[in-house]
C-alpha cells in the first residue's frame, strides 16, 4: 500500500523506532537512522554536523534555517528529514568554500551584508533561491501587474521577496546591495 512505513504504530505512544533514510546533501548520499520526529534542520546540524545552517526560531518565522531543496528555498525547521529521501539538498556548505566563494557569498563579504552573521547562511541560501524564482518570471506581492511576463528586480522587489529572512542586526541595506550585485552580474 505504501512505499515505506517506519516506526511501530502500536508502541508509538511510548517510543518510535528509528527510520532509515538516505539524504543527498551537497552532492553526497548520507545514510542516516533517525527518529521520525527529526526535522531536516536537526538532521543537518546534529547528525551530519553541517552547522552552517542555523536554528533561529524553529517555527518558520525567521528564515535562519533556509536551505535549497531541488533548487528551491525552504525552511528546514518546518519539514521532517524522512520526507526528503530522493531530494537534492544544498546547504551553505555546498555553495562554496573559504577559498572558492559562491558569487552570493563573495557579494555579502564585499558589501558587508551582515553583522553578527547568524542569519547569513539562511540569507544567502534564500537569496540564491529567490534569484532563481525571479529569473523564472515569478511575480511577488511588490509586483504591480502579476500578469506581466517580466518584472524588474527593484530594491522594493528584493525586500518583499526576502521578507522571510529576518536580520536582528538590521543589515538589510547591505544585504540588498549584495543581492543586487549578483542579480546585475547575472544579467550582464
Amino acid at each position, binding site marked *: 500500500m505504501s512505499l515505506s512505513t517506519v516506526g511501530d504504530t502500536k508502541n*508509538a*505512544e511510548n517510543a518510535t523506532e528509528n527510520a532509515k533514510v538516505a539524504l543527498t546533501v551537497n552532492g553526497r548520499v548520507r545514510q542516516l537512522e533517525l527518529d*521520525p520526529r527529526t526535522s531536516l534542520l536537526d538532521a543537518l546540524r546534529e547528525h551530519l554536523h553541517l552547522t552552517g545552517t542555523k536554528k533561529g526560531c524553529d517555527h518558520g518565522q525567521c528564515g535562519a534555517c533556509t536551505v535549497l531543496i531541488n533548487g528551491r528555498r525552504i525552511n528546514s525547521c518546518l519539514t521532517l528529514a524522512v520526507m526528503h529521501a530522493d531530494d537534492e539538498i544544498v546547504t551553505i556548505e555546498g555553495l562554496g568554500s573559504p577559498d572558492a566563494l559562491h558569487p552570493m557569498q563573495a557579494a555579502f563579504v564585499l558589501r558587508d551584508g551582515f553583522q553578527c552573521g547568524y542569519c547569513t547562511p539562511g540569507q544567502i541560501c534564500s537569496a540564491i533561491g529567490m534569484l532563481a*524564482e525571479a529569473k523564472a518570471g515569478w511575480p511577488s*506581492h511588490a509586483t504591480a501587474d502579476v500578469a506581466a511576463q517580466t518584472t524588474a528586480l527593484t530594491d522594493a522587489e528584493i525586500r518583499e521577496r526576502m521578507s522571510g529572512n529576518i536580520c536582528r542586526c538590521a543589515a538589510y541595506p547591505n544585504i540588498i546591495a549584495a543581492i543586487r550585485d549578483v542579480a546585475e552580474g547575472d544579467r550582464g
Partner: protein
Amino acid sequence: MRPFTYERAIDPEAAVAAVSKAGAKFISGGTNLLDLMKLEIERPIHLVDISRLPLKDIKEEPDGGMRIGAQATNSDVAADIRVRTRYPVLSQALLAGASGQLRNKASVGGNLLQRTRCPYFYDTAASCNKRDPSSGCAAIGGINRGHAILGASDACIATHPSDMAVAMVVLDAEIELLDADRATRRIAIGDFHRLPGTTPHIETALKTGEMITGVVLPAPPEGRQFYRKVRDRASYAFALVSVAVVVATERGTITSARVAFGGVAHKPWRAKEAEAALTGGTATMATYWAAAEAAMAGATGRGHNDFKIELAKRTLCRTLAHAAQEN
C-alpha cells in the same frame, strides 16, 4: 513533539486507506502541522505523507475553468501564467501570504486546512474551545485585536488565516474530495469552512478520512479582479483585514460585483449584501460606501478589534475604487 510513525503514500487511494487508522493525519508541506506538533497542539500518532502524490497538476478545463491539484505548492499556483492572467486575484492573494520559503513548501490543500493563528489557540496554558473543547475562550475578554468581527460566537472568536481561500471564495471555487471508500465529491468552498458556533474545533465539512484532491475554478467571472491586504507590517504577516473583489462596469455603472473578506471571520467571508448593494449602482464612492455599510451591518467588535469594522469598510471602498477603474 509526541512520537509518531511515518509512511509515504504512493497513490491517493493508498493515502485515504492509510489515514483511516485512529490518530493518523495527512502531512503535505508541513508548514502549519509541524509547527503545531512542536507545541503539542497537534498530536498525531501516525503521519501519512501525501506530498509526493500525483496531485500537482494545474490544468485548464474544457469549460474555460481550471483545476488545481491539492499538492501543487502555493508558489506554483501563484507563478502559473494562466492563473496570473485569468485569475490574478488568486495569484495576488497567494503572494500576499507567508514568505517565499513557506510558499515553496505549503500545498493548496494544506492552505485550506491551516489552523487559526489566534494566540490563545497557540498558548497551551490558556483556555481555548478550539484546542480543548468546553475549556472556554481566553480571547473573549483577552487581547483580541486580531479577532473576528463577523460570524463569531461566545465559544470562539478566532479567524481563518488564509489569503488564498478568500480569493477562491470570490471565484466560486469547488473543492474536490476523496474518501476512504474511494468515493469522490465536490463541495463549494463557501460551504467548506464552518462558523464556530458551539463547536469551534470542527472547522470544515471534511468527513473523517477524507482527503482534498484538488480545487476547481469555474471560468473567470466577468470584470476586473483585485486583492488587497492590510496588516501590521509590509510583508510576511497575517491580515487584519483583506478584501478580494471582482467588479465589472459599463459606462460608469456596476454590472456585476463579487466581494469577499479575509481576517474578519472563522471562514473566508463572502459579502453577498455588499454585492447586491453594488450591482446596478454607479461606480462612485457613495455606492462603495453603501456596500461597505451593508457588508459590515452585522459586525460586532470585542474591544480591541473594534477598529477592524471601520478598517474593513475603508479597505473595501479603496479596493473597489481601484478595481472599478475602466481602461
